[in-house]
């Protein structure tokens, strides 16, 4: 059975994407990038509740990694162009997910991205974040609109969990770039030691076994 690393936030989209791929017979390893202190504790709680719900719903055990991402935000915000922040964030998520995939023997990364939904999810920006990954990025929701995603979320019972109170990321820039250029993003990333950030994220992460959820 093919295995994918699924980036699971506490939001509406990623659990739906994960569910759709489980239904296709894919084994899932969940990764939650923990944005605290730029979100609150409720987002982590919601992500874990969502994984537990998907386990119960599908009868599939899901191992879950929780990775500290707040310190990465601080480094990017202090050293790099603020308009590109969401791209640095996503590229870092993919780097970490790829390292976890290596460890888990997974063959791709699964995300709940959907075209045009937020600033980082334009075609140009998706191209920029794609360039950082060697593994394929699977985006089952890419062509769905929000209402279609919500309908599936309601049907599978994740909507109620995803919409529980939880603070959105507060370090999102005032004017995020919607059409970033790869050379600009790479030039900014060269100002910092990306590899050391990835290593620190991996050192700080912890894993929850399916039965621990």
């Amino acid at each position: 059975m093919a295995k994918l690393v699924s980036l699971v936030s506490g939001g509406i989209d990623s659990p739906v994407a994960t569910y759709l791929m489980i239904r296709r017979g894919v084994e899932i390893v969940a990764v939650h990038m923990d944005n605290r202190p730029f979100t609150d504790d409720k987002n982590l709680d919601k992500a874990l509740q969502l994984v537990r719900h998907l386990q119960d719903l599908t009868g599939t055990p899901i191992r879950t990694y929780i990775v500290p991402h707040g310190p990465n935000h601080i480094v990017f915000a202090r050293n790099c162009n603020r308009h590109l922040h969401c791209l640095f964030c996503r590229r870092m998520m993919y780097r970490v997910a790829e390292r976890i995939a290596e460890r888990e023997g997974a063959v791709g990364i699964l995300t709940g991205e959907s075209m045009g939904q937020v600033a980082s999810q334009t075609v140009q920006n998706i191209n920029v974040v794609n360039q950082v990954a060697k593994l394929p990025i699977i985006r089952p929701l890419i062509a769905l609109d929000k209402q279609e995603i919500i309908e599936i979320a309601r049907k599978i019972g994740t909507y109620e969990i995803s919409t529980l109170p939880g603070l959105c990321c507060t370090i999102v820039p005032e004017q995020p770039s919607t059409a970033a250029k790869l050379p600009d993003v790479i030039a900014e990333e060269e100002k910092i030691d990306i590899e050391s950030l990835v290593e620190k994220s991996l050192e700080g992460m912890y894993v929850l076994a399916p039965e621990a959820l």
Partner: protein
Amino acid sequence: MYSLLKPCKTSAAFEAIPRERFSLDLDRCEEILRPVCTIVAHAGVLLIVNDRCEVSIHRDGRLILKTGLQELATEQAGRIAGWLEGTDALRMHRDAGMSGRHQRK
């Protein structure tokens, strides 16, 4: 200084919106607030804790107050405004009060 508090979309926090357009020098804000609050992070936004309420202070003057209690959010926004108003951390814009989101009553 702040005229409106509206709940964030998931009701986990309140947002305080400046009555007039101004920007904040977050370095100066940090210096001013350090004696009275705990500074959690200064990185694009200034994240502080005051009386167990976490507040994100943005360059455009917005505050995100991490509490579901409107009374506490109002009190905290007022307190922060009191600390910053009249200091050189706050720069009024020439078109103050004239545009977009800052025009809300």
